[in-house]
Structures are given as C-alpha cells and as structure tokens.
C-alpha cells in the first residue's frame, strides 16, 4: 500500500512535470484546486476583513491621528497649489511685461507696488523723481494702463488709478481725460475715458450713432499729453446713446485687476 501510493505520487509528479514542459495545465493540481478554491476565496476575503477590523480596533487612536495629520497635509497642499497658481499667473504677467516693445519718446521705469489706498484709488510705487518719474506719467501693467502719477517724492510716487473719478481733475487742478480709441471698428472710434466707480470706466463718444459693440477693445489714442497710444484701457460692457447731447456713453471694464498689481512700469 505504502509503496503503491508513493508510486502514485511519483506518477502525479511526472504528469505535473510533463504538463509543465508542454506548457499545459497540471490536470491533477487543477482538479484539487477546483474543489479547494470555492472555499478559499471567500475565506481569504473574510480573514482579511477580520484582520483589518482587528487592526483598526487595535490602532484606532493612531489611525485617527494619522487621519488628522493627512487632512492637515491635504489643506497645506491645497494652499500650496493655490499659491503656485497665483505665482504662475504672476510669472506670466512678468513675462508679458518683459516682452513689451519700446515706446517712442518714453522710457519704462520698472516699479513695485508698495501700497494701495482703496478709498482714494491710489497706489504707492517704490520709484520717484530720482529714478526719473514725473507728474502725469502713465503707469502700465501687463494687462494695460493703470493710471497716472499724481504725486512724486524722491524715492516714492503715487498713482491715481484710471477707475478713480478724481482722475478727471488732477492735483494741479487741470482736467485730465484719457483719449481713447475703439480699435475694433474701422475707422477706430475716438472718445474720452474717465473713471466712473471702483470697478468701471466711462467712455464718451461724440457720435451718438457710433457703432460701438459690447466686447470692443479700447486703447489709448495718444492724444493725451503724456499718455502714448495703444495702451490697453479695457473692454466695452455696456452702451447708452444720448442723442440730446449728441454723445454715446459706453461703460468699460478696466484691463487691469487691482488684486494682481505687483510690478508695473512708469512711462517717463
């Protein structure tokens, strides 16, 4: 009996070997596994589940602290990601500014915004008369015209933003309007831009039937004394004809965003 069963074992072994050599399935093993696996598979899942549950109970405190730590890391990562996006946008703006071409009769003085007065619509820049800044010089950012210089110190200056209603009357008492063109029309439509409130500009066209369209791009005309042509001012968001006065008024969304102003050029 013993010898016979051992011989049978060797026969199984040789069958298994020959099957492997021929790259065929091992029939004897497969038959046995066929009976074992229906129990083994759910048993494996069950024991894993039990082991996980037991581990969870045993290390609940550690898992809870791990969970808190991971949530903190996730929050930090989110802040990092937002910060990265902000920096990316800033880099894009700086690259755009780096690519600005020369403006005849003007030189660009790079400056950092070191203060913002929201109520007065003023920015403080870290350049002044020693760097060549003069009263009335326009200030541009990557998106377009920001405003004009209102006060100049030796190493600092203040910019009155386009959105300020006060831009109409400067500190010197002169009315200063920004000449502007609607460049989406042919021929370009001429008008003047002034601040209306903190977030919009007002442009007056002298033809009440001027074919201004919402979305039209408005740039400086160059007719102002110190402001060169082709600086982006903003886009038309609303139009309103006033035939009694022979004008057409358009509301503009300014090109610059106050929240992103960091580095600007003073066009001296």
């Amino acid at each position, binding site marked *: 009996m013993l010898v016979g069963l*051992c011989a*049978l*074992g060797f026969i199984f072994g040789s069958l298994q070997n020959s099957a492997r050599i021929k790259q065929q399935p091992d029939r004897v*093993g*497969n038959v*046995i596994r066929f009976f074992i696996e229906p129990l*083994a598979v759910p048993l494996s899942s069950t024991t894993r589940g039990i082991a996980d549950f037991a581990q969870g109970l045993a290390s609940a405190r550690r898992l809870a602290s791990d969970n808190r730590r991971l949530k903190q890391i996730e929050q930090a990562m989110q802040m990092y990601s937002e910060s990265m996006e902000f920096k990316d946008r800033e880099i894009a703006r700086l690259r755009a500014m780096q690519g600005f071409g020369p403006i005849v009769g003007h030189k660009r003085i790079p400056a950092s915004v070191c203060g913002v007065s929201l109520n007065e619509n003023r920015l403080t820049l870290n350049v002044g008369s020693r760097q060549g800044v003069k009263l009335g010089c326009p200030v541009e950012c990557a998106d377009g015209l920001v405003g004009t210089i209102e006060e100049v110190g030796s190493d600092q200056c203040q910019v009155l933003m386009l959105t300020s209603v006060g831009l109409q009357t400067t500190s010197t008492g002169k009315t200063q309007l920004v000449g502007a063109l609607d460049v989406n029309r042919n021929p370009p439509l001429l008008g003047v831009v002034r601040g209306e409130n903190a977030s919009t500009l007002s442009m007056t066209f002298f033809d009440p039937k001027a074919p201004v369209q919402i979305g039209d791009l408005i740039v400086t005309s160059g007719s102002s004394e110190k402001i060169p042509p082709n600086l982006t001012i903003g886009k038309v968001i609303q139009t309103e004809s006033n035939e009694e006065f022979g004008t057409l008024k358009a509301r503009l969304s300014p090109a610059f965003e106050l929240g992103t102003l960091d580095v600007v050029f003073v066009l001296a």
Partner: protein
Amino acid sequence: MKGVKGWVIGLLLLWLAGAFQQAVAFQISAGGVGPDFPLIVVVTVALFFDRRSATVFGFIGGAIRGAIAGGHMAAYCVTETVVGYLVGWFAGMEFEGNMVVAFVVTALATVSTQITFLLLTPRGAILPYLAATIGSAMYNGVLAMPLYALLKRVLDSPRH
C-alpha cells in the same frame, strides 16, 4: 479506524485545511514560520485511523498540499504518505492518546516531513530552513492540540 464517519470528517477537515492553507496560512505566518494545515489534519486524523487508512489519508493530504503549493506533487505526496503510514503505525501501538501526544507527534511529523522534503528537493540555505522547520513544528504542534481534542470528542476516542 472510525469507518465512514471518520473518513467523512477527515476529508471534510482536509478540504477546510486546504482552503485555510491557501487563504489564511500566509496571513498568520511570522518570520517565515507558518502553519501547515493539511499536515496538521493528516497527523491528527491519522492518530484515529489504522495504518492502511492513515497511509491513504496522508497521500490525499499530500496531493492537496502539493496542488495548493504548486510545488513538486511527488515530493508532497511521498512525504505525507510516509507520515500517514508512520503515524498510523504509531497509533497502533499501546499508548494513551492526549493533546500532548498530538503536539509531539505533529511536531515530529513536521520535522520529518520537512527533512524528507529537503532531501527530495535540495536547497541552498539549510540552516534557515531548519530553523523555520523547528518553528513550524512548534506552530503545527500547538494547532494540533485543540484539533485532537475536538476529534476525540467527535470520534469518541482513539482506539486505546
């Protein structure tokens, strides 16, 4: 020999042992030392069988172990057949069966199986293998004790 009842319970235990070997053994092994459920069942059940039945039972246990392990079927079949034969022969001697006997016999069977297996399928690192064998022998012996107690209750008592 407990007749059909013994065989039914034995084969059922072997089936469970096969499933546990495939699904659970690796989860409860530590430091390379894990249980050998089919061997535990073969030895423990063989203690209740006569020599002939124990030999056949050992052969079936070896075939199951070989199929699950995917190793050399002949090595597993031969070693466990021999173990079944020896345990059956031992069970035929005059002795008082108890859990300690089950522990000792299972541990010795594990060691002899592993050494026979080592001879049939030679390996390079022998010392770690022998250390793991001793660990497995203890592990299997401990697991065999409650199984023996259960079988003794179900199958009445060993032949003596």
